Structures are given as structure tokens and as C-alpha cells.
């Protein structure tokens, strides 16, 4: 079987190469040689092309076979999952690598060598950009420990018994939407002034009809295109610094996992548009509310001038821990280090704090009232 997978090997010693975020270079585990991305790109351009062609051929062959033969019975024991799996042969040890049909970069479970499936990013599937990892796996481990600090309601056993069961650096596929919002918003606003007349306080409330119109341009609103990644975690690790986006190259992938998109741009557009509309209305509100004491939206009309959509791979570390037989998933922005995740809440700690705060405030405030009033 012609190989569809590429191992990036050191030109000096043929050891496996992987991309190191801190240096921005591909490094050899064995002879510590370092190579610029462009250098390796050149070296592997032909190999990747060959692998892409093989991938394409394999795909066509499979399609053809499926149009001639009913093979559904052969993999029926895999169920639905079987249809979503792909098998590749590792170029280093010839072992069979079975992975998700969207996997584009992984490592061989037998020899551990980073493996790239160039076909996943061939042709129309090729991302426009990649944002290289800046932070290491060690940074992610440290960030998790730091994340626990200062969490008042975190159960003690969670930190004591907690161990990272999985840590992986993933290039997550994102759609980046650019658009311009033309927005018209109508508000009910009030302005309140108070003055004293003799023995009376006189409050005058002026009621206004307020309108604001304008345009708000947005650039590269990200929506994760992965079906495997939790949306909330992917939204929460934002923002990314787009100034460091690079034109896509496979050479950034070795050492990390990568996926091609599982959700099309059409499927993701609604999330981007909702965010743009909300922010455009908020901008008009900010402008209007400065001049008034109270301001509420009466009517809004937002038209989006839809612009370019880009496809990019953005760096995210995914960490999984286990506590009380439950998995806790965390994500870290591989570029900025922003760390997010949901932690368990200790009920006993919650109520201890609650009663402590309530009692302290009551005592201090009650005494102050007694003394000063």
C-alpha cells in the first residue's frame, strides 16, 4: 500500500523531528539539530505531494469500490464508529495507525514518531493559516497547577488525588469570519436631575427617544470547526494574537495533533453572526448611554455585509483529569497561555464561606449601625 503518511525526519540523522513552539523551529530528538520551517518545507514538498496524491488515490479507489461493491457488512462490527475511522501505515515502523477520519497529525502509538497525513490538508481542505504553538507541554502542566490556586471552593482531594490523565497539543481547525455590521438601534432613555425647593426634593425626569446608527467592522471572528472539541472551551481560550498567523505549512504540525475541519463554514456561520450582531448593538448602546441616566433598547436592526472567511489551525492544549470517576476537561491557549475549564465545587466549602461572610458582614455592619446611627 502506498503510504499516505509522512514522518518528518532529521536530514542529519533521520531521527524524528517535531515543532518546538518556544524556538519556532523543528528540532531533532536525537542529534538536537534545529531546522527552520521553510527549510523542511522545501525538503518535504515532494514527499508531501506524493502522500497527498496517494491519499487522493486511496480515496477515489474507496469511492469506486463502494459504488461497485456493498462492503457495509465487512465492518459492521465497528458500528457507526467504523465509518469514521481511518487506518494508515507508519512509515517508520510500518505499524497500522488507526485514527479519526479528520485526524491530520498524530503520533504512532508504537514507535512514537510524529506522523502527518498531508492528504487531510490537500486541495480545498488546505488551511489558509496556522498559528504556531508558543508554549510547551510543561507550560500547560504548570498552568493547570496555577489554575487551581485561589479557587476557594475546590475540594481538597481534587488537588491531592488529581492527576493529568491526558495532555495533548492540538491544532484545532477554526473558521475566521470577517464582516461589517450596519446597525440601527432605537432606545428609550431618561435623564434624571434632582434639586431642592424649600421643604421639597424635586426630581425631574426627562424622557427621550434616542437613535444611533453606524457601522462596526469585524475581522476574523473565530468559530471552531472541530466536532470533537467542546465549543465552550474553544470560545473561552480566545483571543488569539492574529499578528503571528503564518501561511499554512505542514512543518508546524509534527509533535502535535491536528485535525481538519469537521464542521463546514456554512454550519458555523450562525455563531459568528450572533456574536457580531450582539457586539454591534452593544457599541451603539455604549455611545447612547453616556449621555443618559437610563437607556434601554427598544428596537434594533442589524444588516451584515458578509466578507471573507479564512480557514486556520489555532494552537490549543487539551488536558483531561479524573476525579470521582468523572472527567474534567481543561483547555489552554497554546499561544497566550489563557487557561479555562470547569472545576468541581465543594458544597461544604461553599456553605462555610457563605456563613462566614454573612456572619462577619452582619457583625461589622450591625456594630457600625449601632455606633453611628
Amino acid at each position, binding site marked *: 500500500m502506498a503510504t499516505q503518511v509522512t514522518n518528518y525526519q532529521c536530514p542529519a540523522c533521520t531521527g524524528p523531528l517535531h515543532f518546538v513552539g518556544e524556538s519556532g523551529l523543528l528540532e531533532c530528538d536525537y542529534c538536537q539539530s534545529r531546522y527552520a520551517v521553510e527549510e523542511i518545507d522545501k525538503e518535504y514538498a515532494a514527499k508531501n505531494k506524493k502522500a497527498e496524491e496517494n491519499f487522493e488515490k486511496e480515496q477515489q479507489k474507496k469511492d469506486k469500490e463502494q459504488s461497485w461493491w456493498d462492503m457495509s457488512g465487512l465492518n459492521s462490527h465497528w458500528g457507526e464508529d467504523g465509518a469514521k475511522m481511518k487506518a494508515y501505515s507508519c512509515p517508520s515502523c510500518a505499524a497500522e495507525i488507526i485514527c479519526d477520519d479528520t485526524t491530520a497529525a498524530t503520533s504512532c502509538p508504537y514507535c512514537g514518531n510524529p506522523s502527518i497525513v498531508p492528504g487531510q490538508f490537500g486541495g480545498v481542505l488546505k488551511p489558509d493559516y496556522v498559528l504556531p504553538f508558543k508554549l510547551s507541554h510543561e507550560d500547560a502542566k504548570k498552568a493547570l497547577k496555577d489554575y487551581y490556586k*485561589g*479557587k476557594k*471552593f*475546590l475540594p481538597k482531594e481534587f488537588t491531592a488525588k488529581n492527576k493529568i490523565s491526558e495532555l495533548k497539543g492540538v491544532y484545532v481547525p477554526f473558521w475566521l469570519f470577517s464582516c461589517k455590521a450596519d446597525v440601527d438601534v432605537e432606545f428609550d*432613555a431618561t435623564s434624571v436631575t434632582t434639586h431642592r*425647593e424649600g*421643604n*421639597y*426634593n*424635586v426630581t*425631574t*425626569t*426627562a424622557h*427621550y*427617544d*434616542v*437613535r*444611533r*446608527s*453606524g*457601522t*462596526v*467592522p*469585524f*475581522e*476574523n*471572528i*473565530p468559530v471552531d470547526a472541530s466536532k470533537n472539541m*467542546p465549543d*465552550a472551551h474553544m*470560545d*473561552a481560550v*480566545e*483571543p488569539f494574537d492574529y499578528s503571528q498567523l503564518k501561511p499554512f505549512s505542514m512543518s508546524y504540525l509534527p509533535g502535535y495533533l491536528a485535525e481538519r475541519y469537521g464542521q463546514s463554514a456554512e454550519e458555523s456561520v450562525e455563531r*459568528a453572526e450572533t*456574536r*457580531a450582531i*450582539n*457586539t454591534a448593538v*452593544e457599541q451603539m448602546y455604549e*455611545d447612547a448611554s453616556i449621555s443618559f441616566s437610563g437607556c434601554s433598547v427598544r428596537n434594533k436592526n442589524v444588516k451584515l455585509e458578509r466578507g471573507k472567511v479564512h480557514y486556520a489551525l489555532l494552537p490549543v492544549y487539551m488536558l483531561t483529569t479524573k476525579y470521582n470517576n468523572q472527567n474534567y*476537561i481543561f*483547555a489552554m491557549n497554546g499561544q497566550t497561555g489563557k487557561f*479555562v*475549564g*470547569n*472545576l468541581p465545587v465543594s458544597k461544604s466549602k*461553599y456553605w462555610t*464561606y*457563605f456563613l462566614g*461572610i*454573612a456572619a462577619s*458582614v*452582619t*457583625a*461589622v*455592619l*450591625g456594630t457600625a*449601625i449601632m455606633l453611628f*446611627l
Partner: protein
Amino acid sequence: MKKRLFKISALVLILSLIFSFGVFAEGTKQYVYDPVYLLTDSEYAELNTQAAEISEKYGCAVHFVITDDPSVNYDNIQVYSEDMYLESPALGYGDGKDGVMLVLGTYDRCYWLLAYGDKGNYAFTDYGKDWMSKHFVDKFGNDDWYGGFKVFIEDCDYILGEAEKGKPVDIYYEETDVGVEGYGIALVAGIIIAFIVCGIFKSQMKTANIATNAKSYFNRSAVEITNRYNRLLHTTVTRTEISDDDNDGSSSRGGTTVNSRGFSGKGGRF
């Protein structure tokens, strides 16, 4: 002319008080004077009996007088009440004429509450009179005459009772109230603050949330406001009377303010 009419009216009432004192001398002494007949016979009898009992119990007369004389108004009801009290032998208790008296002018809907004598002025402090008036003014304002006088007599009973214990109702009662209420307010505030603080702590435990805005993906300077339109529709004006507590603080010092004639008092409208 007005002054003369006023004097005549006071004299008529004094004479009627003297007369009625004579009439009731054999039975219960008269403490309640209602020539206007705002009270029914049974109400009158009940209130007079209660006033008599309290007066005897504490050695301090509890009176109330109603007049519909048009010459009695908000500006002169104090002088009218004090003159009447000094000149009528039926009013007050014992040689010192200790007592408290509420005079109600129904024509101008005003009242004067006075205290006299060592016992009267000791028991009915400025704060105590304020405290009492808050109770009966609302009732008189609703033309609940019986209710107003009933609560007045009950308050007199309480105030005289406290004075007899050596602790007249005064500003420190308010402080005590503030203490109890203050701790109540502090408790509610404590619970609210605890909810807010714990809510903040809890929100730190859940940081993976779906994004609802795109604030990081636009340049503020690129936002263009093309239309700013503000049109005044109408204005509303509300006037709130500044309460006596905010305004004068007359009762904030505690004790009783006694004038040169030996009276302490408080008046107002209902």
C-alpha cells in the same frame, strides 16, 4: 376682632369644662371633652373611663379636647391649648396640675399635644410626643376619631408606665429600635453580600463558557457612528416632602423642651 372672638371661644370652653367638672364630680371625673359629638356615647364613656384609670394610676391626668371653633387654627392652637389648660381647674392632676392633653381643632384640622408639670414633662419627652403623634395623626387624617383617641390613651399608658420605671420614652428608644432593626438590616446585607461574593468565587470555578460577543475582533477606532439622534419626548416632575427627621432634628437631642409657661408641646395637622 379675631383675637377677641378667640378669647371668647376659649372662655366658653373653659366655662363648659368647669360646668362639666361639676356634673361629673359625683361620678367619674371628666377627662374627655367632645362638645362636637365626634364620638358616640359608648365610645365616649369607654375612652373617658380608660383616661380616668390611667390618670389615677400614674397621678398624671390624660385629657383630650375636641373643638370645631373656626377661630382655632394651626397658628394659634398652642396658645389656645395652654390658656385653656392653665385657666381650667378641671384639667391636670393634683396641685402641680400634672398632665398631658391633646387638643384637636377640627375646623383647621390641626392639633396640639401638650404636657405640663414635673411628672408630665418628665414622662412626655419631645421624642415621646413625636412618637405618639405618628400613631394618632394617621387615624385622625382618616376621620377615625375613636381609633385616634384610643391609640392616644394607650400610648399615654405606655409612656407613663415607662416613666414610672425611670426610663421615659426618649431618643434612646429610637436607638434601641435602630439596634434591632440595624442588626436585621445588617443580616440581610450580610446574606446578600455572601451570595454575591460566593457567586464570584463560584464563577471562577467555571471558566469555559460559550462566547456571545466579538469584542476582541473589532477596532474601536474603526467604529463609525453615522447618526446620533436624541429627541425630548416629555418630562415628569415629582416632589417629595423632606421629612421632619431629615429637616430639623428637634427630637434628636433627647429630653423635654419646656417653655417659659411650663409647657412642652408638639403640634401639626392631620
